[in-house]
């Protein structure tokens, strides 16, 4: 597909910086044939030749690849080049990754979400590296007048095995560019991996620890103005009148403009805007339902008794199973709304000019943001460029692009380049929350303690399907029904790290412990028996790997010394999400009559671990996140407005509150799957199950601190 002209120009500029030539290897990021690479002669490179990304080797040996995916702390800017460098046998210190701007002609999955970047790019990046290596070896063999099989590669050099002669990749790059590539380039055997599975440091560390302006909020351009936007404080209201006379007269203020339900205060400095904002008088009027958390609580309960739920999965004959049951266990679990609270508040820069639109800032979904901007401004998409800055956290909030549209619309109105900045209050009151959900579980046991029937109903606010109907224990229970029902609310909701499963996993894993207890079985043994049942007599479709799940369960039990420790109470949890499997064991001890979470073990199967450091960060960070939010996270509403607006009223986990974490990975060589999310869902369940073991009190609602045994104990 021909790329637009401006893209060619940009690529050409990058190209001409390859001083003295070098090797450029185009490779396909979006093609289904991930094995296909195209060798390019730099002189021909115009960006219109059908391949869609490239790996370049400059004559000084510097290796560069463009990464399409936004970096928000998942460490993609380090992990991507590791994969290339591995197959290339490159000198790791000479490999660079650059953030590619949005280019839908070149990249087909230019977003960060769903823990999907590594699985998507794994083969593409390996093939690109292996292809470049093949050419460099061929070039060296030609020079030495020998066969390629007489050469090896190591750390950025081709080595003649017999004589020990060597040539650097930089020296060979130009000649390599003239050699054509065979259709099949072999990939390394994983036992030869040196870089994949290692722990290099984050390639952006230096910039981060010296305070370089790499985040969206740091972006500055001569001539730009800044703005903050007052949005309706209550969901279900709209602007009735605005009096900005006083604000407009304040120093540093350029204008106050109202569009849709936004009142934008535009000025020269952040402080001037913050002050003037308080002088704007806005009246709001009702524009839909105005809801409070107490309304939601009632609604969720009544939805569980409704007959309007949508069936998501049905196996066997549930009614008969429950009729024949010796024991029935019923339990309900509920979680509140949560804001994302990325440390960098939402912001975006927009410059809407007659000749085109420039958008710059932190987004997880640059393509959707551009599409929506094009529609909003009625401008063709190819007139809009999007540059992606580093994201100071995303957690799903930056999958939405409301803040991009605000900036674009405001710039089009004031006809100036503008950076729109949200405050923490804007962020916490501004919607897109993890919605409140309530689940009802019912289990039927026969007289031997076998699970013969299972029902799950999920009721969510703006959550069309609050279940994951094909996840375990589906497939292991003959008679099962899973359905869901939603309430449409003006309070806006969206994806929050590990959508749905961030709470469902807790509820389900806690409930399975309730069932195990009723069946008189050990929680680990109970889960293993269910898996064995799914293996030998599956009920309906099985959409998870029984073997992989079994392995993480057994490993977590072994690593944690499950059931063998004195003085600690252990809780178990296991969950499959985003194609990865994570089992966790939480250890609680009683101190001054209060349960204290001391340690969490995690065993993760995400296939091949590309970046050990990055993987540990995702698992440990995911556990801290999962534990912190299960323990403390709660956003409530009064008359449509969020009641917690900043960190003094909304508690987030701090250093002194984190448990020790011991993380292990299964080494099975399966192609890598995601890890940005999967470690979070199991944590709440492991913690609640351990607390039950320690205290006999079953926590069913989040946040835990509002529930016994914490609610009554002082100090929390």
């Amino acid at each position, binding site marked *: 597909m021909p790329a637009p002209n401006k893209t060619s120009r940009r690529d050409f500029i990058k190209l001409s910086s390859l001083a003295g030539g070098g090797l450029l290897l185009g490779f396909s990021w979006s093609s289904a044939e991930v094995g296909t690479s195209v060798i390019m002669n730099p002189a021909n490179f115009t960006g219109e030749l059908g391949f869609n990304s490239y790996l370049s080797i400059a004559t000084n040996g510097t290796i560069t690849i463009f990464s399409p995916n936004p970096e*928000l*702390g998942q460490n993609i800017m380090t992990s991507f080049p590791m994969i290339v460098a591995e197959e290339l046998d490159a000198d790791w210190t000479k490999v660079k990754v650059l953030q590619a701007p949005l280019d839908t002609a070149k990249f087909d999955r230019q977003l960060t979400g769903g823990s999907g970047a590594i699985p998507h790019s794994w083969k593409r990046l390996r093939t690109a590296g292996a292809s470049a290596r093949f050419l460099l070896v061929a070039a060296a063999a030609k020079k030495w007048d020998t066969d390629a099989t007489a050469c090896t590669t190591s750390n950025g050099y081709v080595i003649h095995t017999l004589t020990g002669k060597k040539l650097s990749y930089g020296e060979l790059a130009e000649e390599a560019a003239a050699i054509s590539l065979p259709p099949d380039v072999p990939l390394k055997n994983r036992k030869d991996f040196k870089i994949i599975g290692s722990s290099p*440091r*984050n390639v*952006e*560390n230096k910039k*981060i*620890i*010296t*305070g370089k302006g790499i*985040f969206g909020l*740091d972006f*500055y351009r001569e001539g730009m103005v*800044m703005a903050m936007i*007052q949005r309706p*404080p209550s969901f279900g*209201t709209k602007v009735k009148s605005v009096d900005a006379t006083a604000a407009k007269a*304040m*120093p*540093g203020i350029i204008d106050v403009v109202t569009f849709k339900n936004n009142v934008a205060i535009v000025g020269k400095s*952040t*402080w*001037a805007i*913050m*002050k*003037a*904002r*308080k002088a704007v008088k*806005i009246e*709001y009027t009702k524009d839909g339902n105005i809801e409070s958390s107490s309304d939601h609580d009632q609604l969720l309960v009544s939805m569980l008794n409704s007959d309007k739920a949508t069936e998501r999965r049905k196996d066997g004959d549930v009614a008969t199973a429950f009729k024949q049951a010796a024991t029935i266990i019923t339990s309900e679990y509920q979680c509140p709304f949560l804001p994302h*609270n*990325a*440390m*960098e*508040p939402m912001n975006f820069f927009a410059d809407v000019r007659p000749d085109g639109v420039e958008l710059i800032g932190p987004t997880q979904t640059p393509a959707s943001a551009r599409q929506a901007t094009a529609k909003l401004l009625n401008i063709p998409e190819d007139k809009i460029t999007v540059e992606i800055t580093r994201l*100071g*956290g*995303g957690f799903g909030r930056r999958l939405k692009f409301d803040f991009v549209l605000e900036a674009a619309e405001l710039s089009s109105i004031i006809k100036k380049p503008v950076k729109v*900045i949200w*405050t923490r*209050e804007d962020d916490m009151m501004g919607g897109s929350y993890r919605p409140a959900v309530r689940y009802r579980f019912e289990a039927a046991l026969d007289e031997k303690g076998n699970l013969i029937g299972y029902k799950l109903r999920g009721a969510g606010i703006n959550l069309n399907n609050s279940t994951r109907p094909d996840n375990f224990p589906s497939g292991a229970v003959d008679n099962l029904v899973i359905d869901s029902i939603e309430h449409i609310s003006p309070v806006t909701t969206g994806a929050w790290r590990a959508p749905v499963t961030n709470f469902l996993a807790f509820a389900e894993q806690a409930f399975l412990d309730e069932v195990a207890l009723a069946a008189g079985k050990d929680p680990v043994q109970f889960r293993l028996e269910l898996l064995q049942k799914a293996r030998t007599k599956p009920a309906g479709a099985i959409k998870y790997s029984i073997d992989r799940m079994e392995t993480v369960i057994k490993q977590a039990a072994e690593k944690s010394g499950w059931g063998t420790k004195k003085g600690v109470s252990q809780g178990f949890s296991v969950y499959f999400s985003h194609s990865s499997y994570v089992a966790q064991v939480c250890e609680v001890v009683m101190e001054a009559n209060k349960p204290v979470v001391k340690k969490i073990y995690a065993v993760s199967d995400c296939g091949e671990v590309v970046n050990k450091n990055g993987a540990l*960060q995702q698992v*440990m*960070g*995911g*556990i*801290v*996140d999962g534990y912190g939010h299960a323990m403390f996270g709660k956003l409530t509403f009064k008359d449509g*407005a969020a009641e917690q*607006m*900043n*960190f*003094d*009223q909304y508690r987030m986990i*701090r*250093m002194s509150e*984190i448990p020790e*974490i011991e993380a292990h990975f299964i080494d099975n060589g399966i192609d890598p799957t995601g890890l940005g999310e999967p470690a979070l869902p199991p944590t709440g369940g492991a913690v609640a199950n351990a607390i039950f073991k320690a205290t006999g009190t079953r926590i069913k609602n989040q946040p835990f601190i509002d529930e016994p045994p914490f609610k009554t104990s002082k*100090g*929390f």
Partner: protein
Amino acid sequence: MASAMPRINPAVILHLNGDKIIKGREPCLIAISVIDFFKTGLCFNFRGNKKGHMAIFKLHINGKERQVDVEPDTPLLWILRDHLGLVGAKFSCGIGECGACTVLVDDKAIRSCGFRVSKIKTSKITTIEGLSVNGDHPLQLAWDEVDVPQCGYCQAGQIMQAVALLKMNPKPTDGEIDERMDFNLCRCGAYHRIRDAIKLASTKI
């Protein structure tokens, strides 16, 4: 329905004053009294100063003298970010609760989002940009070696808080590290590595 915005719960001000301690934590070391706080305009019943008295302030920042012409109530954070192009100190909460904006004022860790310029006087300010010439302060090196950053947004503030901690207490225990570092939030949950990096640096200082 009328609503003057932004709304704020009075607990914010109490907390910043240090009278109210939430959840068993110490109040933040925000270096202003409640009276100053009202005057800064950070308080939400601020009545705008329409004339906007501008004033010239000479500041000692990172070993250099810098001059700014701003309103006296401007918080140091915005002087650094908007007027001097020093964007290492970050904005996240604006109320002294997260530590993303932490800088040193005479070697003490200060939340610059609530520290107004007129209070600075002759104090010496150090930001992450001025911590070392080559990014090789022992804490910066330790941060790299332990590979602390995830998204990285909180990290400059974390490092500056840790610098103040080690100046006061070069060999802190885990408990002493936690106590000081509890002022700084990390949404990515990099706390284990932050603690490890401080311990590593403390062996080298």
